[in-house]
């Protein structure tokens, strides 16, 4: 049962990843990644990580990837025209990717041929996660939340449409120099 599910969803994940590479249009790549994420969520369930599995769905697939799809739609991203600019990537890329796969998969992962004694139902409840998160990992948690806040603020700043030049009517003191600098500031 475990093995069957692993093969099924592991295979799905791999297929999704490969599809991500093969597909031309960004939207297809994005959806492939959603497939990978869904499969991984199932694998997480197999590994007894229920919480992570659903967070994976909720946050990764349901929020982050939605964002991607959104941006793709917003920018109407079409398959990019072929370009052969980067020689380094062309010559170096295949061996690098291949070697990475071989090294990581065969040499590194090959060392862990072990099956632990007692695997089974998840041994922790949702509460344990909360406990760990707010005691042992409180500092990282807070740091990441600050990071997140900053990230959100930055995203809003970056994506905000450059403001139009301020209209004279709305300005309190329409000094030309002032408006110049404002325009510059908005442009930058």
């Amino acid at each position, binding site marked *: 049962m475990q093995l069957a599910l692993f093969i099924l969803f592991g295979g799905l994940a791999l297929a999704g990843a490969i599809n*991500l590479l093969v597909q031309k249009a960004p939207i297809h*790549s994005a959806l492939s990644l959603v497939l990978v994420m869904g499969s991984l969520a199932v694998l997480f369930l197999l590994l007894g990580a229920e919480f992570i599995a659903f967070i994976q769905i909720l946050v990764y697939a349901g929020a982050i990837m939605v964002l991607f799809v959104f941006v793709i739609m917003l920018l109407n991203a079409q398959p990019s025209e072929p370009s052969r600019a980067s020689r380094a990537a062309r010559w170096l890329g295949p061996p690098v990717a291949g070697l990475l796969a071989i090294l990581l998969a065969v040499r590194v*992962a090959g060392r862990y041929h072990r099956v632990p004694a007692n695997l089974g139902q998840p041994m922790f409840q949702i509460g344990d996660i909360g406990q760990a998160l707010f005691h042992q990992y409180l500092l990282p948690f807070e740091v990441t939340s600050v990071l997140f806040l900053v990230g959100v603020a930055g995203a809003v700043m970056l994506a905000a449409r450059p403001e139009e030049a301020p209209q004279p009517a709305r300005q309190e003191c329409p000094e030309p120099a002032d408006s110049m600098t404002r325009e510059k500031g908005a442009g930058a």
Partner: protein
Amino acid sequence: MVVSLADYLVLSALLFALGVAGFLFKKDLITVFISIELMLNGVNLTFVAFSHYLRQNAIDGNLFVFFVMVVAAAEAAVGLAIIIAVVRNRNTLNIDKMDLMKN
């Protein structure tokens, strides 16, 4: 037959390598970004697998994944905002055309 840790690790290694390949070969910015997310996912799988097998269902690996997700979310927000800004200015998503740094 049982699934061993190695199987999960191999899977995640392959996912990671595919992510690297995507990063290197894909030409539009968004797909490159997506490839990064794929790499992160591959790593996440190793976290959970290690947590499950090596530490006997320890909670730590799960929390790492949790943090990775939060960071990924922040990264996605900022990164996509940057992509939007870039496209607004350069009017292209092709990564090879973003060569203002050249020369």
